[in-house]
């Protein structure tokens, strides 16, 4: 049986509703980078100027030491996807994070990819 994450209690909700939009300075859409729910992001460099970043962005850099989807980052931070996209957009713009677009937005699905997916599922 699958486990669900415990829902945040009401007291937490009151804080979390305001905070995400404060840290994005009211922006709800990233200005330049088009990120998908399954864009894969990874931290790009070690020389980060921590003083210029929000605590949430430092969290993102820690999480992204290994490649993660935008959806996973949002889930781990327990923040709305739209907010995480803005934070990631900043990090990408500053060269701290690299992103890769989802496969299927580049081209129709290649048979080799379908075969790889089939093999991957069969290995489970």
């Amino acid at each position, binding site marked *: 049986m699958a486990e669900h994450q415990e829902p945040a209690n009401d007291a937490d909700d009151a804080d979390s509703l305001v905070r995400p939009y404060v840290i994005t300075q009211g922006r709800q859409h990233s200005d330049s980078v088009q990120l998908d729910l399954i864009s894969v992001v990874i931290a790009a*460099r070690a020389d980060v100027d921590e003083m210029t970043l929000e605590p949430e962005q430092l969290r993102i850099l820690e999480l992204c030491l290994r490649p993660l989807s935008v959806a996973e980052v949002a*889930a781990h931070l327990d923040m709305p996807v739209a907010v995480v996209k803005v934070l990631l957009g900043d990090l990408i713009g500053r060269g701290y994070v*690299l992103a890769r677009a989802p496969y*299927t937005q580049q081209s129709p699905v290649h048979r080799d990819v379908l075969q790889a997916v089939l093999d991957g599922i069969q290995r489970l």
Partner: protein
Amino acid sequence: MASNDSDRSDDPIPSAIKILVAGGFGAGKTTLVGAVSEIVPLSTEEVMTEASVGVDDLAGVERKQTTTVALDFGRITITDELVLYLFGTPGQQRFWFMWEELAQGALGAVVLADTRRLDNCFPSVDFFERHGVPFVVAVNCFEDAHYYTEQEVTEALTLDERVPVLLCDARSRASAKEVLETLVRHVAATAATPV
């Protein structure tokens, strides 16, 4: 994309692909995702406001609306370069604005049917048919549920005969694997992609 000057530009970043698992409330979407996912299914929230809502369905609605939708998802690493994500998508019609984005680029979809409420998966079937997303129907066999044959489900949902229908146990990894394998084979059979 922003890859110059980085310390990691030589490391491959995997690209991701997704499969949707749709169905009515309680049909077992997250259970099926969890049966095959290498991570405990995660949940994320999309906050949608009027600006990002599709214009078609809400034309004439003047009020500014905010809706929060929870999405459960899991992950299967296929290769170093490819990761598969499985998204459980809420089946209710009022979430269709979000389906548009989710369906974009999806490899295919599993419509999880609950035989106790077979009509709950009509909206999912309808959506995928209209958007040309290849799908299979997996009938989650609850112990207390009425038993249908695959043929009966095909007729009840007025499915194209080519759409695979199979009975499954969403709790079982072997059964969930069979559902996904059937979907990928169906995608391969329907997509006329050149090799």
